[in-house]
């Protein structure tokens, strides 16, 4: 019966392969999710009635239902209307749409916290609403959102582990496979747990540094 460290040495490479898949998936989801989330946030603040209702509905739906249900729906449900997706793509779409809904709320809060007086001043100079939003509101809102928003990348990294349910060969799935072949489930998952811990801590540290660097700008009165 090999010790834990020997076990780790043998199976770490497999887990690292899985980690790479996890990180790839995570990166795509963050990219798509943040862009979509920002758009949704803008829709909620500046959109007319129908846009507001649609974006609010989307957000309520994705925040009110479990991530697991969303993944199962996208992977197993969509084929029934002709949309066939590979596990990775299905997981990425579901995760991306989910994180967008949460991020939308953070962005909305940050945008609304910018005093309307600044927008009025911008408009008074002759800027269009779009110019005012992109030159005055967004640069400040994107800085203000960082503390709250930085929860999202970490959360997404952890929830990416659910993708193993539909067969994505990410970290969790590899740990399970090792478990099935060695019957040392606990060791395999413990190893996976440690990898996640390291990843989330590195990520948290990076985000913390980002927050520090961005808040160099003095906040307005």
């Amino acid at each position, binding site marked *: 019966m090999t010790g834990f460290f020997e076990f780790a040495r043998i199976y770490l490479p497999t887990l690292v392969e899985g980690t790479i898949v996890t990180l790839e998936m995570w990166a795509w989801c963050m990219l798509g999710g943040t862009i979509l989330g920002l758009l949704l946030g803008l829709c909620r603040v500046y959109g007319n009635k129908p846009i507001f209702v649609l974006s609010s509905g989307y957000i309520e739906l994705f925040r009110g239902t479990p991530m697991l249900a969303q993944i199962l729906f996208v992977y197993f449900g969509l084929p029934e209307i002709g949309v066939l997706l590979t596990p990775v793509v299905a997981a990425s779409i579901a995760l991306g749409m989910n994180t967008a809904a949460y991020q939308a709320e953070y962005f909305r809060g940050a945008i609304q916290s910018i*005093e309307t*007086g*600044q927008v*009025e*001043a*911008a*408009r*008074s*100079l*002759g*800027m*269009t609403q779009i*110019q005012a939003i992109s*030159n*005055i509101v967004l*640069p*400040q809102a994107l*800085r203000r959102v960082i503390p709250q928003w930085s929860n999202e990348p970490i959360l997404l990294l952890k929830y990416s582990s659910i993708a193993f349910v539909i067969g994505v060969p990410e970290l969790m799935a590899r740990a399970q496979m090792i478990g099935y072949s060695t019957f040392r489930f606990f060791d395999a998952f413990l190893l996976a747990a440690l990898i996640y811990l390291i990843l989330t801590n590195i990520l948290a540290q990076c985000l913390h540094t980002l927050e520090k660097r961005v808040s160099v*700008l*003095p*906040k*307005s*009165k």
Partner: protein
Amino acid sequence: MSLLRVDDVYKAYGDLLVLKGVSFQMEKGDIKVIIGPSGTGKSTLLRCLNGLTSPDKGKIWIDGIEVTDPKTNINKIRPDIGFVFQNFNLFAHLTALDNVCIGLVKVKGMKKSEARVLAMEELRRVGLGEKAGAYPAEMSGGQQQRVSIARALAMNPKLILFDEPTSALDPELIGEVLKVMIDLAKGGMTMLVVSHEIGFCRAVADEILFLDEGKIIEKGHPSDLLANPSYQRTKEFLNKIIKLYGEERDKA
């Protein structure tokens, strides 16, 4: 053709009728001050002039173009109308210099390098050349307001609207802003100011408009109106502000 023409403007907020038929005109070079009790729609009137608010009834023309016409592209007129806010509304994430530049670059399409030169001129004009690299949070209220005036000036406006420019300032900072405004007035700028700074009125105003309960009750040259107001309400109001704010400050 007048530079500014306001014709029978009405504005209500819900049930409250704030402007009840206001009309007046301004020619190039005029300095007019609107005084009156708070809540009587002075700010609202000013905001109607550059389209931040729309009147319910009535028309407004700036240099022949009808501001109140929905077909008018308001963004084209606004650069010609400077607006100085009570709360300065400087762009918090930009330095003083960039605050003054941004209108030139984004609205007038100027090159950044040219804009900076012009912006520095305006900042120096208001006495803040050395604060070009400072952020709003690093400046006093008086400095912020002067930057906001520079920001308006940089656009080369035909007239400037001032919405209680000194009301949000600590007393010792009011003087520096009023000095800038007086210099502007003496330099020939057309200015419409909402304020209770009587000293400013005496120094440079051509006419004072007393706005009470949504109407212009009385208007006249400072020397006439302040010494001999025709209406009782005007008299009461003037007494009140002189009591509250002391005799008008001495401006150099």
